[in-house]
């Protein structure tokens, strides 16, 4: 299905032709966010469990379809009952994961307790506020270096930079690769494979319109990197996450090859893509709301609430999936075992039942109980504290070191329902602000 005309960015809910809204159509996700949120308003109000067919991807059979959960209360109720609404049949794809992809993508994000909790606790200590406090200086050093390089790039190209390639992508890539112990020369391939894995099938990132082969190839390359590093760490352990994955025993056993490979891929991909899009789309939102830019830049006390508002506003991960393990009823909707539910965090984060004036971008918003890192339940974002830290350091550093940053053109949006991503965001340095 294609969209007949480009819908207006400032659409009101009443303007949306609901017959054209198909959450499975990746092109729909490149429409302006204002239009998409107007459509979410209608769904939340009128069809809180709207049913959609699954998309056809070559080589990946479509299943029975899914319900789009758009109200905050419903989303929280489902997320907090993992025994009734499981993750083990797939959390990050509308379709069940084909067997050949399971080795690389069957990670703890698509796993249920007790196994999920046991695996997660191997790394959870590394991501706690206390432990991350120790890495603050290294995050600052990465951010300062990336911004200095962006300045140099601008100087060599008449002021022009790409916010995505020059600021938003390198910061989380370097931070997570440092934590995992990925050598410098392997990082470009980590970035390229992350992009494929979370492309949502965007044709720019998938060769020959063959997503199954592309996902397999990306998974195999990441697993090959893991195997090399695993052998090195077993011979010579270090103080990094990869060493923890290959040396820790759970229930008296080492992790299986499949568990290590999918865990390694999850940490690298999730550590990369989500924070990148919070940075790029956060800077876009600030440039669209210059009053909020000026207010936040002038007041470091807003770093905490500003970052939370960016995560609410952007909702870098648009949804996660749950599958019913039994028959039941929720919010007046009767469901049967096997029904799929997509939890639309992006919609819940603008629910007027929870957020005052939800379509307003307010860097001082407090309280802000957003679900940008997930809702109640065992799958709450493992990297939330790391992401907060990276984002607080990055926005403050941009305000201080790149006060002349000016977005010069519209962004190029990733055609994905799953990741709210930007591929490019043109900007310039050196102009008058």
């Amino acid at each position, binding site marked *: 299905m294609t969209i007949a005309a480009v819908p207006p960015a400032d659409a009101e809910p009443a303007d949306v032709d609901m017959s054209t809204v198909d959450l499975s159509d990746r092109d729909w996700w490149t429409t302006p966010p204002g239009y998409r949120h107007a459509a979410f308003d209608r769904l939340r109000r009128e069809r809180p469990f709207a049913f959609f067919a699954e998309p056809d991807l070559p080589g990946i059979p479509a299943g029975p379809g899914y319900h789009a959960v758009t109200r905050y209360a419903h989303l929280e109720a489902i997320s*907090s009952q993992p025994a009734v609404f499981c993750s083990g049949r797939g959390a990050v794809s509308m379709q069940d994961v084909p067997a050949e992809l399971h080795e690389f993508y069957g990670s703890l994000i698509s796993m249920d307790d*007790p196994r*999920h*909790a046991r695996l*997660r*606790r*191997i*790394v*959870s*200590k590394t*991501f*706690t*506020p*206390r432990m991350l406090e120790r890495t603050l200086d290294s995050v600052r050093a990465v951010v300062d270096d990336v911004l200095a390089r962006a300045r140099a790039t601008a100087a060599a190209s008449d002021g022009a930079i790409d916010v995505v390639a020059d600021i938003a992508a390198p910061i989380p890539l370097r931070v997570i690769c440092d934590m995992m112990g990925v050598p410098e020369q392997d990082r470009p391939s980590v970035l390229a494979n992350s992009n494929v894995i979370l492309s949502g099938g965007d044709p720019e990132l998938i060769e020959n319109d063959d997503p199954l082969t592309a996902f397999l190839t990306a998974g195999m390359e990441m697993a090959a990197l893991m195997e090399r590093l695993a052998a090195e760490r077993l011979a010579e352990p270090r103080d990094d996450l990869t060493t923890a994955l290959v040396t820790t025993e759970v229930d008296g056993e080492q992790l299986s090859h499949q568990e290590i490979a999918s865990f390694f891929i999850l940490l690298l991909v999730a550590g990369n893509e989500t924070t990148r899009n919070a940075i790029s789309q956060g800077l876009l939102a600030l440039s669209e709301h210059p009053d909020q830019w000026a207010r936040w830049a002038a007041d470091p006390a807003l770093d905490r609430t500003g970052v939370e508002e960016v995560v609410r506003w952007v909702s870098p991960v648009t949804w996660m999936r749950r599958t019913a393990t039994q028959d039941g009823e929720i919010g007046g909707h009767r469901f049967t075992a096997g029904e799929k539910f997509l939890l639309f965090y992006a919609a819940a984060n603008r629910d007027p039942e929870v957020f005052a004036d939800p379509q307003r971008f307010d860097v001082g918003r407090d309280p802000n109980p957003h679900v940008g890192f*997930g*809702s*109640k*339940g*065992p799958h*709450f*974002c*493992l990297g*939330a*504290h790391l992401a907060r830290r990276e984002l607080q350091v990055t926005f403050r550093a941009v305000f201080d070191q790149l006060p002349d940053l000016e977005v010069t053109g519209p962004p190029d949006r990733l055609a994905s329902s799953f990741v709210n991503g930007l591929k490019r965001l043109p900007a310039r340095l050196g102009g008058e602000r």
Partner: protein
Amino acid sequence: MRVTADREVCVGSGQCELLAPDVFEVDDDGAVRVLQEHPDAAAAVRDAVSQCPTGALSLAE
């Protein structure tokens, strides 16, 4: 006020450690340890208990 933790349910998300660092710590096993069983910081501890993603914390007055 007495606070207890269920370490089987805990996934070590560290939300409690963020909100009340004197009372909670995610330990080397990746699960929460209660540092003060009878904490003073009542408001922060109530927040931590109510915001725990897995409901691993409970309070008795």
